[in-house]
C-alpha cells in the first residue's frame, strides 16, 4: 500500500431523516482504492453498499440524507465538501457510474446516438477549449465508443431505440456512455444482476478488458461473491452500514476473518461442487433506527461475547486483511480463537 490511493473513504457516516426517526444507514466506513485496482464491495440488501457508492458522486439527495462525518477523498480532494459545481465537472470526466438495470438509465424516447452524443457534448464544457469536440466529432466518438464495447454494427445502433436492444447490449451502451469522458474511476453498481449468466460473463470480461485499455480503476458493487471473485483483486464486505472485512480476494475466500463473511461463504451454493450442506445466517439485519451498541452483527453471531458491545475497530490480521471483529483483537488471536 505504498501507492497514493485514488479514492479514500474515511470514517464516513450518513443518516437519513425520516418520519420514523433517524436511519443510521452508513456508520463509519473506511476503505482505500489504489490506482489500477478493482475493488469489490459485497453485502446483502440494506447493508449500505449502494448508498456508499452513490455518495462518492454526490448522488444521494440531501435531505433526507445527511452526512454526519467523514471524508471521501478523490486525489486528495474531499468530494463531500467540494460542492455541486465541482462534482458536475468530475462526474463522467473523472468518475463514472453504471447501474443495475440498463433500461431504467436509458431514455426510451431518444435513440442511443442522441443520448450518447448528448453526454459527450456535456463533457466538453470541462475540457480545454482547443480540445472540445463539435457535434460531428462527438458522433464519431460515440461510434468509436460503441465499437470499443464490442457492440455489433455501431453505426447502425446509433439510430436504434433502447427497446430494440437486448439487456446485454443496453449494458454495453451504458458502459460506452460512462467511459466516453475517459474517466479514471468506474463505479459499477450490480452491473450484471439483471442479466443471464452467459451475458454476465461477457460483460465482466468486457469490464476487465476496458480496465486495461482505459487505465481504469473499478469499484464493483455486488451481492454475488462469484462475480466479485472473478473481477476484483480486493473485497470490502459490508454489513448494516459498516465495513466488517477488507481483504484480498485470495485471503477472503481462503481465510475469511469475520463471522459474517464466514457465514456468507457457507450460505452460497457452489456451482462446481456436488451438493453439500448449506447454512443460512440465522436472524435478520438489526434495526438501523436504533442500532445495537457495539458490533452490529452480534445478535446473529455464534461467537458473540461481552466485549462485542464495544465497537470493534478494523484489526489488521495479515497480508493487508483487516477484520472488524474482537476475535481478532491481539490477545484473542494469541488464544487461538478465530
Amino acid at each position: 500500500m505504498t501507492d497514493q490511493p485514488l479514492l479514500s473513504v474515511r470514517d464516513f457516516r450518513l443518516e437519513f431523516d425520516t418520519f420514523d426517526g433517524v436511519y443510521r444507514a452508513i456508520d463509519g466506513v473506511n476503505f482505500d482504492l489504489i490506482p489500477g485496482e478493482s475493488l469489490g464491495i459485497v453485502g446483502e440488501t440494506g447493508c449500505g453498499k449502494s448508498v456508499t457508492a452513490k455518495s462518492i458522486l454526490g448522488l444521494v439527495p440531501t435531505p433526507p440524507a445527511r452526512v454526519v462525518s467523514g471524508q471521501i477523498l478523490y486525489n486528495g480532494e474531499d468530494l463531500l465538501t467540494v460542492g455541486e459545481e465541482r462534482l458536475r465537472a468530475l462526474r463522467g470526466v473523472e468518475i463514472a457510474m453504471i447501474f443495475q438495470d440498463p433500461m431504467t438509465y436509458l431514455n426510451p424516447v431518444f435513440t442511443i446516438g442522441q443520448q450518447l452524443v448528448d453526454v459527450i457534448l456535456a463533457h466538453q464544457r470541462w475540457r480545454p477549449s482547443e480540445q472540445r469536440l463539435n457535434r460531428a466529432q462527438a458522433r464519431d466518438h460515440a461510434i468509436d465508443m460503441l465499437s470499443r464495447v464490442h457492440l455489433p454494427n455501431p453505426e447502425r445502433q446509433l439510430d436504434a431505440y433502447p427497446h430494440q436492444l437486448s439487456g446485454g447490449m443496453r449494458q454495453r451502451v451504458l458502459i460506452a456512455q460512462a467511459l466516453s469522458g475517459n474517466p479514471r474511476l468506474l463505479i459499477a453498481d450490480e452491473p450484471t444482476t439483471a442479466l443471464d449468466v452467459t451475458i454476465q460473463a461477457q460483460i465482466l470480461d468486457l469490464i476487465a478488458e476496458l480496465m486495461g485499455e482505459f487505465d481504469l480503476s473499478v469499484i464493483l458493487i455486488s451481492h454475488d461473491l462469484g462475480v466479485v471473485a472473478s473481477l476484483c483483486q480486493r473485497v470490502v464486505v459490508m454489513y448494516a452500514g459498516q465495513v466488517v472485512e477488507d481483504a484480498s480476494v485470495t485471503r477472503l475466500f481462503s481465510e475469511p476473518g469475520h463471522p459474517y463473511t464466514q457465514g456468507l461463504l457457507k450460505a452460497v451454493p457452489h456451482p462446481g461442487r456436488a451438493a453439500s450442506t448449506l447454512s443460512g445466517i440465522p436472524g435478520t439485519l438489526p434495526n438501523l433506527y436504533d442500532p445495537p451498541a457495539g458490533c452490529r452483527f452480534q445478535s446473529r453471531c455464534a461467537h458473540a461475547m461481552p466485549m462485542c458491545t464495544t465497537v470493534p475497530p478494523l484489526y489488521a490480521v495479515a497480508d493487508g486483511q483487516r477484520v472488524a471483529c474482537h476475535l481478532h483483537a491481539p490477545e484473542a488471536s494469541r488464544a487461538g480463537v478465530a
Partner: protein
Amino acid sequence: MLELRNLSVHFDVSKRGKGKTIVRAVNGINLNIGRGEAVALVGESGSGKSTVGKAALRLVDTTDGHILLDGVDITHLERGRQMPLRRKAQMVFQDPHSALNPRMNILRSVAEPLILHTALRGQALTRRVIELLEIVGLQAQFLYRYQHELSGGQKQRVCIARAIALNPDLLVLDEPTSALDVSVQAQILEFLKTLQSDLGLTFLFISHNLAVVRYLCSRVAVMYLGRIVEEGATETVFTTPKHPYTQALLSAVPWPEATQPKGHAPLVGDIPSPVNPPSGCSFHTRCPFARERCRAEAPTWRALAPDHLVACHFAEDLAAS
C-alpha cells in the same frame, strides 16, 4: 408423476394487418418426472422454462402434445374442472411480494386454498394454518400480519405454506429464491430439501442459477429456445456436460473462490428470437463447434448413456476433443 409428451406452447402475438407473428416458446419437449424426484429446468431467460412450468399446471394453453399427471391426460382440462388438479399440483412463484394479496393477512392468504377445497372453517381452519406456518418455520404471531410487514424470506415461506396447504404431490417452483439474499436463500433451500424428503414431494424446479440447482435437484434438463438440449442426472450433467450450450452455461458461472476455473470460451451474442428461430439446430448461431450439418438438420434427441440424453449431432466428438 408428471409426463410431458412432445409439448409445444406457441403464442400468437400478431398485430392487425402485420401478418402472423408466432412466439414459439416451447417446441416439442419430452420430460418425465418420477414421484419424489426433484427435477430442474435451467436455461437463459427466453428459453421457455417458465412456460413449461405454467403449461404443466394448465396456467397457459398448450398448442400441441400432451401433459399427463399421474397417468391422467390434463392437456385440455377446462378451467371449471381444474379443482382436482390444483389439489395435486401447486406452484411457487419468483416474486413472493406480488404473489401475496396485500389486502389479505397471512391467515387469510394461507387459508384461501383450504376454504376453496376443504370443509375446514373457524377454529379448525386457523389451527391448520398455524400447523402449516410451523412447517415452514414461522410462528403463529404472523397470522394477523400483512405481507408488507414481512421480509422477503418470510413472504416466500408463506407462499410455500400456501402451496403445500392441500398436501399436493407436485410442486412447481419458478425461481423461488432469486429475489432473496444469499443468507436467506440458503435457509429456504435447506428447508425445501427437508420438505422434499419429509413429505415425499415431487419438484419441478425452474431456475437460471446453476449452483442452486446442483444443490437441490437430482436431475436436470437444460433448455434452449424452447427445446431441451440435454438432460441427465445432475452430477453427470455438471461434471461431463455433452451439449456445447450446457458447457458454455456452466463455464459462464463465476465461482465463489479466489481462482476461477479455466473453462470454455464464453458464448458470444444473445439468445435469438423465438419468433423466428434459426434453422436446423437452434443453437448453431452461437455454437463454437457449428458445422454445415447443424444449419441444415435439427439434431435428434438421443441417449448417450441410459440416463443422459442430448440433442447435438456431434456430442461424442466434442466429448472426445
